């Protein structure tokens, strides 16, 4: 038993024990016990993952545990990375849950399922056979569905979100299962080792890849299959949203990398061009929807689609480079993608937990009704600000490092051979750049409109700071963001080990210097320079101002009386220019009602402005399918007229028909 196996075993045991504790502990202490247990589960998962990254792999099989396939677990470097990330997120979410779940989430089922969800997510990357993988995956889907539905008594939208999630996650599971079963049938065994040594024909391998890609992409919230994500993430309790958005969606990426690179050993170029195109489209579309969305958690949900899109751009580029034999560039691209997975997990945990804190303190997620939280919720405001900076791909932020690495890979891929690469790479660079720009706008909106200025609603006016346990959970995620932003070299060797292509950097502590490609970045020096620059500027401004005499006066308000919160930028108005630029893409539906005074047409009494931005992909792709299903259902209704005899008769006639067919044809 090495550390990886021990850690994973301890994590599993702790998770199951916490789940049982959630069932038996009295209501008052339940949230604290389960939260602590979940955090400990995560804390045991992290060393297991890190040990696996350091090269301690293990594998165990219990052939008798599950009928037909048995159970096989094993952890290698790739799985270890995802186990470590999931464990880290679980620590923060567990601690946060101690305070957060005390408010209406103490139901036995909810509390018991929460640690099980973490255990399932830890076991998915540790599965080493198709059967085990399917069981763990399904356990993860089922537990997360129950958690999404936790607040169904309070809000009717939860039920609809749960339905969408249930249907899409299971459709995705079905495609993954079909793909892997076909793979296992051709390989003649269902362990990953057998799959790895199998030789598939081109068509079969392509079918397996496309099927599994569809399922895994839907789990990762990638474009045509993203519809569940902006629904389920906002409606789940916030610490569950953090786990789903920062840990669960990653496993979609894990699946694509595991099947594409490890089990199928790479493939032809078009596979990876497909992945790259899906990723780029998701990145741009996701951040665009986030930029014009007013619901704080929905915005974060769309941002998840964006970030996972960027990850897939990296994965696709890595596959493309590997297919054309450039292993160094492939290593850079895959390391960038996996580093982005880690970074995204850190800042998305922080952001979702902070959004939950806002929801807890104000009772609303609507940015148009927030604002002015700086005074009443100072710690949450500071932490969300840090998270927003981390997410917006600007120099001192966390996402900047991985996106820089990704751009390095894409730019250096330009001279690479092949027309497809030469066309795809500039487009991918453009998509990444556009995404980064829109992400800045999005998070400026989320932070500026949501937290600064004056409160625009009663909930925001009466906001109160969250309890210490919630702040501690967020603080932990913030520390992770800081470390990843300033010292990425601490995690890069591990990430590079997981990618399987070797470390692309020269391994210096402070500066990232790419080994075989020209490119250097030193985040720590960059941060120090920025801080120094800001301090000097501030000191200069203060010094110059101090010379002039100070004069206190009211701000110029055009003589319209004291400025009220209604004069502020709202989220809608802030996003309006972006919406106008991308009018043809998002197709917003706006409604302006103007009421005039009875006496004069020239005097306006009230103006009502309504805007709805329907998800266009959803409208074009899902609504026809849903309509067809509904038509099919109503056509089938004539078969079911309510008579029990008729229903039994269908069975009887079918049996007799089959028997007659047998008797006649044999």
């Amino acid at each position, binding site marked *: 038993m090495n550390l990886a196996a021990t850690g994973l075993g301890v994590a599993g045991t702790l998770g199951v024990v916490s789940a049982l504790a959630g069932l038996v502990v009295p209501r008052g202490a339940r949230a604290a016990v389960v939260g602590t247990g979940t955090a400990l589960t995560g804390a045991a998962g992290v060393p297991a993952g890190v040990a696996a990254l350091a090269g301690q792999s293990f594998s165990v099989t219990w052939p008798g545990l599950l009928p037909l396939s048995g159970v096989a677990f094993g952890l290698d470097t790739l799985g270890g990375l995802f186990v470590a990330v999931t464990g880290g997120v679980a620590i923060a979410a567990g601690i946060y849950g101690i305070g957060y779940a005390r408010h209406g989430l103490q139901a036995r089922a909810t509390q018991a399922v929460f640690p099980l969800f973490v255990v399932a997510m830890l076991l998915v990357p540790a599965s080493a056979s198709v059967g085990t993988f399917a069981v763990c995956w399904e356990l993860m889907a089922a537990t997360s569905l129950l958690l999404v539905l936790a607040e169904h008594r309070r809000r009717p939208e939860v039920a609809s979100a749960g339905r969408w999630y249930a249907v899409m996650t299971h459709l995705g599971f079905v495609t993954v299962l079909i793909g892997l079963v076909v793979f296992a049938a051709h390989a003649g065994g269902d362990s990953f080792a057998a799959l790895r040594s199998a030789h598939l024909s081109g068509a079969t391998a392509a079918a397996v890849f496309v099927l599994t890609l569809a399922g895994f992409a839907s789990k990762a919230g990638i474009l045509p299959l993203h519809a569940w994500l902006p629904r389920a993430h906002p409606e789940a309790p916030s610490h569950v949203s953090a786990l789903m958005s920062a840990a669960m969606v990653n496993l979609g990426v894990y699946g694509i990398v595991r099947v594409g690179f490890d089990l199928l050993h790479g493939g032809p170029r078009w596979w990876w061009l497909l992945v790259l195109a899906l990723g780029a489209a998701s990145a741009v579309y996701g951040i665009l929807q986030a930029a014009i969305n007013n619901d704080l958690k929905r915005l974060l949900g769309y941002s998840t689609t964006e970030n996972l899109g960027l990850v897939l751009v990296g994965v696709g580029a890595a596959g493309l480079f590997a297919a054309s034999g450039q292993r160094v560039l492939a290593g850079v691209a895959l390391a960038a993608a996996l580093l982005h997975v880690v970074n995204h997990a850190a800042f998305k945990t922080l952001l979702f937990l902070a959004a939950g804190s806002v929801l807890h303190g104000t009772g609303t997620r609507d940015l148009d009704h927030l604002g002015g939280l700086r005074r009443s919720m100072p710690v949450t405001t500071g932490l969300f600000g840090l998270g927003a900076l981390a997410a917006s791909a600007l120099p001192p932020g966390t996402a900047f490092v991985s996106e820089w690495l990704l751009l390095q890979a894409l730019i250096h891929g330009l001279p690479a051979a092949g027309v497809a690469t030469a066309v795809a790479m500039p487009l991918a660079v453009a998509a990444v750049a556009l995404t980064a720009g829109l992400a800045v706008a999005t998070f400026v909106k989320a932070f500026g409109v949501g937290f600064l200025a004056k409160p625009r609603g009663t909930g925001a006016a009466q906001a109160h700071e969250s309890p210490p346990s919630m702040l501690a959970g967020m603080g932990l995620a913030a520390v992770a963001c800081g470390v990843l932003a300033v010292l990425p070299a601490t995690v890069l060797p591990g990430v590079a080990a997981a990618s399987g292509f070797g470390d692309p950097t020269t391994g210096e502590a402070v500066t990232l210097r790419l080994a075989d490609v020209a490119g250097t970045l030193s985040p720590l020096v960059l941060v120090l320079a920025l801080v120094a620059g800001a301090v000097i500027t501030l000191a200069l401004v203060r010094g110059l101002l101090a010379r002039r005499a100070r004069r206190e006066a009211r701000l110029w308000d055009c003589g319209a009386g004291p400025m009220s919160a209604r004069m502020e930028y709202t989220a809608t108005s802030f996003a309006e220019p972006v919406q106008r630029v991308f009018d043809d893409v998002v197709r917003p539906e706006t409604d302006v009602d103007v009421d005039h005074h009875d006496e004069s047409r020239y005097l306006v009494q009230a103006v009502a402005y309504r805007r709805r931005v329907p998800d266009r992909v959803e409208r074009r792709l899902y609504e026809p399918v849903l309509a067809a299903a509904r038509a099919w259902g109503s056509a089938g209704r004539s078969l079911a007229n309510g008579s029990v005899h008729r229903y039994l008769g269908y069975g009887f006639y079918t049996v007799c028909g089959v028997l007659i067919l047998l*008797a006649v044809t044999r």
Partner: protein
Amino acid sequence: MNVQLLDLACGALLLTAVLILWRRELAVIIRVFALQGVALAALVAVLAAGEGAPELWGVAAGILVLRAGVLPWLLRRALARGGAAARETRPLVNVAASLLTAAVLTLLAYAVSPPLVALAPSPATQAIPVGMTVVLIGFFVLVTRRRALSQLVGFLLLDNGITAVGFLTTTSVGLLVEAGISLDVLLAVLVLQILTTRIRETFGDTDLDELRELHD
């Protein structure tokens, strides 16, 4: 001798199934069903004598208690609570046509079972078509009879047929498996009995064909 006893038991099984189709009085139907339970137990007993397996004798005794004792008793109790509606007055297919259909179903069963018999030809497997006929007739009763109680009998007939086929093909279904199946049937009957009572309390009748509002 043994073969003749086996054929006799199978004949009784088939005859009782047809009798259930023929009679309209629910009380008589239940009595015939009990007789069929005896025939099934006898069938298993004959097989047990042939095999010389002591646990098969146990299974035979269990079947006798359950299918000729407990289940008919439960059905009679449900009937006694029902009061007036003790006749299957208007089956969806009338009795004459039902008997003809039973003949057709018997032919069908004989037409499809040769491959099963050919797997391991023996006097026991030669009788498989009888078991299948009982299954089909049970299904037919389910489809055409209106009273909840006769539907219940149809379901039990189906199960008797399945049990008969099981014993005729393999001779020794494990004791545990048989006990599990029997427990299942008992539970199903208990649930359906409660359901029948509830239907009568709510609608004043147990004619299932009247219950057409229960659909989407």
